[in-house]
Each structure stands twice: as C-alpha cells, then as structure tokens.
C-alpha cells in the first residue's frame, strides 16, 4: 500500500511538472526564422510525458504491487524519527555538499573541499578521537593532493579563498 501511495504521489508530481513546463513553454519567444519552433520539441516531450504519467498514475491506483521481501525489510521505521534515521546518511551528504558549495566563494576550493570531506567522514564514520585524526589526514591528504594536481599539474584555476571578505564578515578587519 505504501508503494502504491508513493507511486501515485510521484505520478501526480510528474503531472504537475508537465503543467508547469507546458505553461512555461508559452514564454518561449517565437523567432522569425526557422521552421521548427523552439517550443515544438519540448511540447512534444511534455505531451508524451503527460500521457505516460497518466498511465503511471492509473497503474499505481489499480495495480497492488507487492513489495519484495528484502525491500520490505529495508523500509524505514514508522514516524518522522524513523524516516530521519533511515535517510540520515544521504541527507547529511546533501546538506554538507550544499554547505560546501555555499561556502566555496568565501573559503575557496581547497578549504571548503577539505572541510566538506572531513565533516562528511566524521558524520558517516563517527566522531571518536582516533577517527578525527584519521579523517583529518584523509581529508587533507586526498583533497590537498587533488587540488595541487589540478592547480600546479594541470594549470586549472580553482576557486580561491576570499579571506579579506571573510575577515570583514567576522568583524576582524574593517
């Protein structure tokens, strides 16, 4: 029953998505040249996607799909805390990656990268003193090596840290 609801919800989401994109397709400018309008191909895709989403919705409402045993065992515990515990690791990965990208303009690729890997290692592997040291070595070693290789070996200009800005934000410097 849970799978049924999930599938129905996904199908409805897809239908809404089709609606949003179909409405947005009217904002596409009509050029005075060319035969195939820039909106034709996307609209054809949206139409096909809409039809398939309806079929998917219909299937999800009519088919009582049985959840495989192994999948059933792996389902999260009921309640928000159970759900959170089940998805804890992926959520942390996304949150930390988001933080990594958000801090990139300030800290730069090297510091943000090391920070991201170090925090992720601790979140996933545990915060014991031994782990902290090991994780710090892994984060600094791996990201430092990769950063050096790209910066000095391949000549790629990776985002630098903006410390003056950071100090201003922190109120250390005027």
């Amino acid at each position, binding site marked *: 029953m849970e799978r049924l609801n999930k599938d129905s919800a996904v199908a409805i989401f897809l239908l809404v998505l089709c609606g949003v994109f179909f409405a947005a397709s009217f904002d596409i400018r009509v050029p005075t040249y060319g035969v*195939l309008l820039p909106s034709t*191909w996307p609209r054809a895709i949206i139409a096909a996607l809409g039809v398939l989403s309806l079929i998917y919705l219909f299937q999800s409402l009519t088919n009582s799909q049985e959840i495989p045993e192994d999948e059933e065992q792996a389902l999260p515990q009921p309640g928000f805390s159970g759900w959170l515990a089940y998805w804890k690791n992926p959520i942390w*990965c996304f949150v930390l*990656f988001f933080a990594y990208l958000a801090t990139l303009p300030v800290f730069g*690729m090297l510091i943000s990268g090391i920070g991201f890997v170090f925090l992720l290692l601790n979140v996933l592997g545990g915060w014991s003193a031994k782990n902290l040291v090991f994780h710090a070595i892994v984060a600094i070693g791996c990201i430092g090596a990769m950063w050096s290789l790209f910066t000095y070996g391949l000549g790629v200009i990776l985002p630098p840290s903006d410390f003056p800005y950071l100090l201003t934000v922190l109120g250390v410097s005027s």
Partner: protein
Amino acid sequence: MILENIATAFGELANIKTIILMLVGVAGGLVAGAIPGFTIAMAVVLTLPFTFGMPATQGLATMVSVLVGGLSGGLMAGILTGIPGTPSSVATTFDGFPMARRGEPGLALGIGVWSSFCGGIISAVLLVTLAPQLARIGLEFNPWDYFMLVIFALTITASLAGKNMVKGLIAGLVGLLVRTIGEDEAAGIARFNFGSDAMLQGFNFIAVLIGLFAFSQLLSDVRDPAQAKKALMDKGSVHIRIEHRRALREVLTRWTIVLRSSIIGVFTGILPGAGGSIANILAYDQAKKTSKHPEKFGTGIPDGIIAPESSNNAVEGGALITMMALGIPGDVTTAVMLGALLIHDVVPSPTFIAEEPVLAYSIFIAFFLATFMMVGLQSFMLRVFVKVTRVKMYVLTAVILGFCGIGVFALNNVEYDLWTILWFGILGFLMRQFGFPLAPMILGVVLGNIAELNLARAFAITTDLSPFFTRPWSLFFMIVAVFSAVYPMYQDKRGTKTWTLYYPALLLIAVSVPLFMMGGFIRPSIGFAIMVGGIYTLYKARVTHKATAA
C-alpha cells in the same frame, strides 16, 4: 588504407608518456572495476578532468585504458568474494566463486583474465573492421533516420527496464526535457530558464551525468550506516598467484565459447541501450544451453567463467563501434566517452572516421593495446585490489564526492556545474528510490539535442511527415522501436497469451519491409531471407496455436 591508418595511429600512441598514462589508466580501471559500488562509468568520469591538458590522442587513449581496465576489474571481486565488482561481471561469480572456493582461485582468475583478453582482442578486431563499414551506412542517414535512431535507442533502453517500462520511458522523456533547458541549439532562443541567467546555458551533461549516476550511487552505498562503516570486503587473500599457463590452455581449448560469447558481446554492445550487464548473462546462458553438461554450470567449471568474461569485454568494442560511427552512445559508459570526445573537440559522426582517421584509429589501437596491458597488470593489481578492499565504504564515498567537486569544476571553471551535480544527485537518488532506471534518463540527456537538431533539419527540408515512413532506415528504426516497446509485455505474457506466438514472426516480416525498400541486391536479399524466416515462423506459430486450441 586501413593498414596505413593503423600504422600511423600506432606511431601516435608509441611514445613513453602515452604508454605510461595508459598503464596508469588500465591500473586505475582495474581497481575501480573491482570495487563494488564504484562503477566503470564513475572511473571514466573521474579520469576525464585529468585529460583536459593532454593532446586529444593521449587523453582519449587514457580514457579508453580506464574503460578496458574497468571491464576486467570486476572479475577479481566476483571470483574472490562472490560479490561482482560491476554489473557486467555478475555471471562470472556463478562459476568463478565456486572454483575459487574449491581451492583454485589462481586458475579461476587466470581463466577470467585470458577470457577477458580474448574477448577484448576479438572486439578490437571487429571495432577496426566494422566501425568504418557502419560509418559508411551512417552516411546514408538523413535527419529523419537519425531522429528515429535516437527514438529507437531511447525505447530499447527503456524496454530493458522490463516490467517498469513506463518508468523507463518516463525517465527517458525527463532526460529529453532536461536537455531542452537553456538556449535552443537550432535557433538560440531561451527556454525554461525561469528568469535565471545561469540556467540559460543549460546543464553541462557531464555534470548531470555525475550527479545522476555517480552521486546518487555513492549515496545509495552509504544509506545503511552499519554497511557504510564496513570495509568493502573482508575476504580475499594476497597470496594468490594467477595460473596463466594452465588458464590459457583451458581458454584456448574452449575457443568456440570464446568466439561465440565475444560475438554476443560485440552485438549487444552495438545495440543502443544494452550493455555488459546483459551480455554476460546472455553469453553464460548460451554457453549453458549449448553445453553437453549443462548441469555442471554453477559448480565452478571453466566454461562458466569464459563465457561471461569474453562477452563483457567485447561489449565496449561494440558500443564504441556505434558511438564512433554514428555518434550514438550505447550505454552510460560510452555516454561519458562521448563527453570526453566532445571535450577534446572530437564530434563522432559517420564522417568522423573518414575525416579524422588517425584519431579514430588511435582510439581503436588504444583499445587493443590496453587489452594487452590489462593482462600484464592483472597480477600486480590483484595485490592493490586486496588493499583497497580494506577501505571502508564511507571513506571512499566522502573522498570521491570531494574529487567529483574539483573534477566537475575543472570541466568549465563554472561553479554552476557543481550546483548541477547537487540537484541532479538529489534527483538521481530519488529516482533510484522510486524504482526509475537511470540509463534511459542519461541517454535522454545525451541524445536530446541530437534528436531535436535532426528534427529541425528534417522540418527545414520539408514539413511533410511522410519521410518518417517512406525512408527505409527511418521506417526500420521505427519498426524496431515499436517492437522493442512491446517486448517487455511479450516477455511477461509469453506462453499465456496467443498474440505472443506471433510476435517473433511479425517482427521478422515487418523488419524485412524496409530492407526491400533499400534497393540494390544485398539488402533486399537479406530482406527476402528474413521475410521467408518470418513466414515460416508464422506458420509454426499457427500450427502451435491450433494444437493448443485443440
């Protein structure tokens, strides 16, 4: 001419720097392929940024080496631990693991290595000979044909999702829709940017691919906190010696299995959407069906290792044939390879082999050389593999995510690409959880602009839709697309519904029609043979139907 091109390509690759890079590539691929959860596509993607500064030949040779190494790496994990390193080595575990447990891991590994080598060499030979021929056929393709070829590629990829065909098609369409975001390539008009200047440039498809595939895969690997803290594998010994001589003898005495499995691999690879994961099972199944002792399969016999390992190495040769000759990637790995080619300003198309013979043949020869390197490095990398398997999954995940960040930024030096990884990582992860296959979506993203550009070209020639039905190749792809769309239903209902009796016959008869339309002598003759086969199958189906009804 071919020999001249091969000699020139050899000359291009025969420098110490390229050879070292290829060796490193094969070694890296072997380790990556051996680690469960770390796919070949991921290894190729991570290698891509390192090749930016290299000349095209060198960079592509390195990428091909990673690919070949990755294809063979899966067998180490499969044979020693029973856990396949990649989906393309699933069938290898059926007999490889029992043989290793019986006390012959060195022989099992040796058979795997030499079968991979033979499969790779056979596919390299077919790559050199078939790719130019297919490219010649590709020159006949007009925009209508290309458009239908893309539709066929997407349909067959979606149909491989089996009972989830609808989800497969939805995934493919979402991929096509994603590709429409940003400036329209034909007219340069902004589409679906929702007021964002950043979205005007669209999404870099390598970043989309890493997000969808690699990011979501890594997150799935660490979903279970207990599993994430475990070492990749606890089993495995460093004291194994690969028995090369004995293994080679075993492989050569079973050359028919090697040849048949390699051909299965190459043709599965040529088919868009199908890949090593299908080829190894198909080849194993064929070897079992044709064996005098099918009951021994699964107990640790050489035949059960030779078949899947020959076929999975041959697959990429086949996939490269289609990609190099037509510019259509067959699977996720070749989609990444296509991205690598485009980054090096190489645009695969039917004219590519004729216009850039040295580069094209360098790729073929790199594939060939990397196969030799793979055999040489396998023994050494076995020790590295055992050490790598002691690493815990979460450590690998965190480090690879960090590497992905640096590597993807280096693609275009644009931070927006990193955000693309995040958004598509979330999307890919959710799609996995809801049972949507990712391969159709990835192909949709890769092939979306090819489909649209060809549709625009077709409409620029005429707004009449009839060429889709009257042009032989377009009709051919349309017919196979329709039949491949129905195939999951056929598989599901076979033996229970009457119409399934007629499916193969109707497919053969339908496919013969465009062949008759192609003109000349050979193709209509093939069409005639297929038609006769179809009518005979129809007759047999009719007889079976009557017998069942009676």
